[in-house]
């Protein structure tokens, strides 16, 4: 439908005002919320993601598009609860206890949000209990753990151990990232996924929720 293309295109241009206007129009035209979300906003962000990956656009353009996406989302949100429309997934993220690095984690959060995920950011220096409790309370699909220090990366395992004893391990997936960690380390501690940057985190979690 034409309106979806228009939403997607405005979103790619980072025109948040136009995205809001078009989203409102689509709602007025009684198009289903799920469809506006999937075929308009998320479809547009998918193109943005591909363009970024191939260096056709740079990070600021991605974030402008993400902002435009939120402009549309803000209008959809109240209706989503009513119509029981789900976002593509809910992720709790934070930096491990003892570690103050949060730039990478913040970027991952912004990009996940931009891709349509609901993100609960717990900040930095986060104890294991807080990750697990929030994931339980908010019914999250995944926990995203960040560590930039060799001294704190081991704290990721503490979160996983606690998830096991609280019986949410396996149900809630774990994705990890940060300079000292790797795919092998993820396997070693029993994390489900590893991602090396924000875009990769988006791709990885999108692939997971799609297969689910």
């Amino acid at each position, binding site marked *: 439908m034409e309106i979806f293309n228009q939403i997607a295109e405005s979103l790619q241009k980072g025109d948040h005002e136009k995205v809001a206007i078009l989203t409102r129009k689509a709602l007025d035209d009684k198009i289903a919320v799920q469809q506006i979300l999937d075929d308009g906003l998320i479809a547009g962000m998918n193109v943005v993601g591909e363009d970024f990956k191939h260096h056709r656009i*740079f*990070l*600021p353009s991605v974030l402008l598009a993400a902002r435009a996406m939120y402009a549309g989302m803000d209008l959809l949100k109240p209706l989503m609860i009513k119509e029981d429309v789900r976002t593509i997934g809910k992720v709790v993220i934070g930096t491990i206890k003892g570690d*103050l690095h949060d730039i990478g984690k913040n970027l991952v959060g912004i990009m996940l949000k931009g891709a349509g995920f609901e993100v609960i950011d717990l900040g930095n220096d986060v104890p294991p209990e807080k990750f697990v409790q929030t994931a339980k309370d908010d019914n999250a699909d995944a926990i995203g753990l960040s560590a930039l*220090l*060799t*001294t*704190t990366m081991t704290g990721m395992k503490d979160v996983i151990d606690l998830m096991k004893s609280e019986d949410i391990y396996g149900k809630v997936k774990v994705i990890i990232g940060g300079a*000292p960690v790797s795919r092998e380390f993820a396997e070693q501690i029993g994390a489900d996924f590893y991602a090396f940057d924000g875009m990769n985190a988006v791709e990885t979690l999108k692939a997971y929720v799609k297969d689910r």
Partner: protein
Amino acid sequence: MRPTIEFLDERTLERILSEAIDILCKIGVEIHNKPVLEMLADHGADIRLDNYRATFTEDIINKALTLAPSSFKLYDSLGNEAVDLSEENVNFTPGSAAINVLDYESDKIRKPTTADYIRYAKLMTRLDHIASQSTAFIPADVEAKISDSYRLFLSLLYCRKPVVTGAFTIEAFEIMKNLQLAVRGSEKELKAKPLTIFSCCPTSPVKWSDVTSQNVVDCARYGIPVEYIAMPLAGFMSPVTLIGTLVQHTAETLSGLAISQLTNPGTSVLYGGSPAIFDVRYETTPMGAIETQMLDCAYNEIGKYLDLPTQAYIGLSDAKLLDAQAGLETGIGATLAALSGINNISGPGMLDFESCISLEKLVLDNQICGMTKRLIKGMEPKEDFPMIERMEELLHEQHLLISDHTMKYLNEEHFMPSQTIDRANRARYEEEGGLTLKQRAHKEAEEYLAEYEKPGLSEDVVKELIRLMEEEAKKYGMDKLPDREE
């Protein structure tokens, strides 16, 4: 004449400073450390404990600037003067706290071991153009909680050079100080002859965490020199413009200076940093980017203008291997840094966004450091005028190879690189095995390691260092430290 380079004219520099002071006095600094906030309040800062904010006064900044010494020296573990951080003196130190080492055989990264660290520290004893060692990477074969102090322990055990280091937690400071006291014998000796510099990082924008601000305070108390490592990322955590990022870096660094000087007036500090641009294609913080290097040189000018000794993370590369990119980024950085007169240049050996050390790169970079130090000696006439007599000598003898003038000045005029730098003609190069750069650097390293000599610490000091470290390890559930080869 010594060649120099400048990026800021005086008007711009003064404006950057006044803008930075404006930020400190109008917006203030977020400091997650109550005692530090209260101390600042005692000196007239307006503080708010609910959001951890301290708004400075110009008086605080001026006081800090007046109190901070304009130079200091580092002494090796035997107490000999080793690094002179004054005026435009240029010294190099390896990049520090890497997460990985680059394996020589496989060209792959791996987590470092105690054996790697010992090799590194032994190698450092012989890299003459790198004045101090750093705790260059984090051995992964000990409990993570002691890995920051353990590397200092190994450094002190195997190499005499002073150490650029840092703690990862508030708790680790204690053991890292005690190791130094074991070497020096008393607090008074340690104050008189600093052995280490601690890196302490503010968080951009204009914020101090409890850990890093406490490290600043603890260092000041014991007279352990600190380098402030503010890391504004241009275009992300600071303005995209280099000048805007410099303003922010200045504010962040001056806030650290105030914490040090108000804690212990006159304590030694380096006006340092590690600002970088943010690469909006790859989501990375390129240390080898030319703009990053320009930022380093420019804030050095600000530090010098404030009459403070300086430090920077420059002369390192983001390459993954010891390749041409590694050489060019390191070479350009080290050259600019030396021309700028940065007092302590942290970089040699480092790859991959400060995350990977290569011992072969360290050997190569030692040569780069040697070359840049030659560069800034510049040129000046040495019995060159009048030239007539020497010309006549040349015409008469047909060469000047054994001329008195040559014998007298050869070594100071020409820097003699090691065999890692290839200057053989092709046939000789092939006869000598046609080795690659990496192979030559490795060979040089192996030669040094074979000739290694211990630093000469007394038996008692060695025993005490081991006792302290073993006790610390036990605290964190490690009954035994990894074996150390002799």
